[in-house]
């Protein structure tokens, strides 16, 4: 049976279309979810896409966290549902306390938009098991508030437990502490990443096909998970 991967659209989401396309190219069925939905329609995984949910009012992701669909997603994520948050989705996951730390204004205050090399350091998550350890990948980064911060104890814990999923290589685009580009929760089912794997899934539009690995990973993960 084809895996069904939910892609949430908030008011102000931008990359939901690309995320759904990436899910389809990876071989799964994208299921569009609306921020006001009270049910997840039986999806096997969820992607929170990039953009500016609720206009980024107050703080990025702060209001999206209280969307009706998020209550369901938080509960399901705690129960093991694979959830990938990209850019604004990463911010929402931090605001929802599914991931530690916070994303703040880029240290240099400039919006950064470029193709970025990352090193995938954790291949044990639901979203990165298709990569080799320490594999370097090239995917677009585009953010104004992508500077990952957390207290020293949290950073040490993330590193000690192998929960830094990816780091920036060849230049940190936003001042993130310890060059962190992506992290995961202790169970490895929730991953937040600032750069955009969904924009690197086909040669016509992306700098590489490296982003596809995140979406094929979750399919691999779901096949190995008893229903």
């Amino acid at each position, binding site marked *: 049976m084809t895996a069904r991967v939910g892609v949430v659209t908030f008011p102000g989401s931008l990359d939901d279309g690309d995320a759904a396309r990436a899910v389809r190219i990876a071989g799964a069925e994208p299921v569009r979810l609306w921020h006001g939905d009270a049910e997840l329609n039986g999806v096997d995984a969820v992607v929170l896409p990039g953009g500016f949910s609720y206009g980024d009012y*107050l703080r990025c992701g702060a209001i999206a966290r209280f969307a009706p669909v998020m209550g369901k997603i938080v509960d399901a994520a705690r129960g093991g549902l694979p959830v990938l948050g990209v850019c604004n989705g990463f911010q929402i996951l931090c605001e929802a306390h599914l991931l530690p730390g*916070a994303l703040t*204004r880029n*240290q240099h*205050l400039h919006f950064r938009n470029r193709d970025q090399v990352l090193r995938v350091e954790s291949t044990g998550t639901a979203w990165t098991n298709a990569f080799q350890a320490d594999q370097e990948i090239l995917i677009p980064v585009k953010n104004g508030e992508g500077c990952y*911060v*957390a207290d020293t104890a949290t950073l040490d814990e993330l590193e000690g437990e192998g929960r830094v999923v990816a780091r920036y290589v060849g230049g940190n685009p936003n*001042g993130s502490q310890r060059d962190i580009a992506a992290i995961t929760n202790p169970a490895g089912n929730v991953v937040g990443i600032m750069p955009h794997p969904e924009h690197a899934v086909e040669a016509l539009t992306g700098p590489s096909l490296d982003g596809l690995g995140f979406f094929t990973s979750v399919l691999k993960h779901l096949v190995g998970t008893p229903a």
Partner: protein
Amino acid sequence: MPRVVVDVMLKPEILDPQGQAVANALPRLGVSDVASVRIGRRIEIEFTGEPDLDRAREIADKLLANPVIEDFTVRVVEADETVDAHP
């Protein structure tokens, strides 16, 4: 109507690049005696009834501030009071 004012500030250990940018612009105004600038956010809440500080604290903790990176204070101000404005 009395209001509750919530002030939200980045924690001291969190870098404030906006504040730094403002501080760096001050010499262009001829101001050279400012050591640092930090930028926060002020929110005014009007309740339908009496101002409720505990409720305001709950709102601030859950939504207005992100306790991971920000601190906040709450206080009640009278309707005709202009907070911290000194003409």
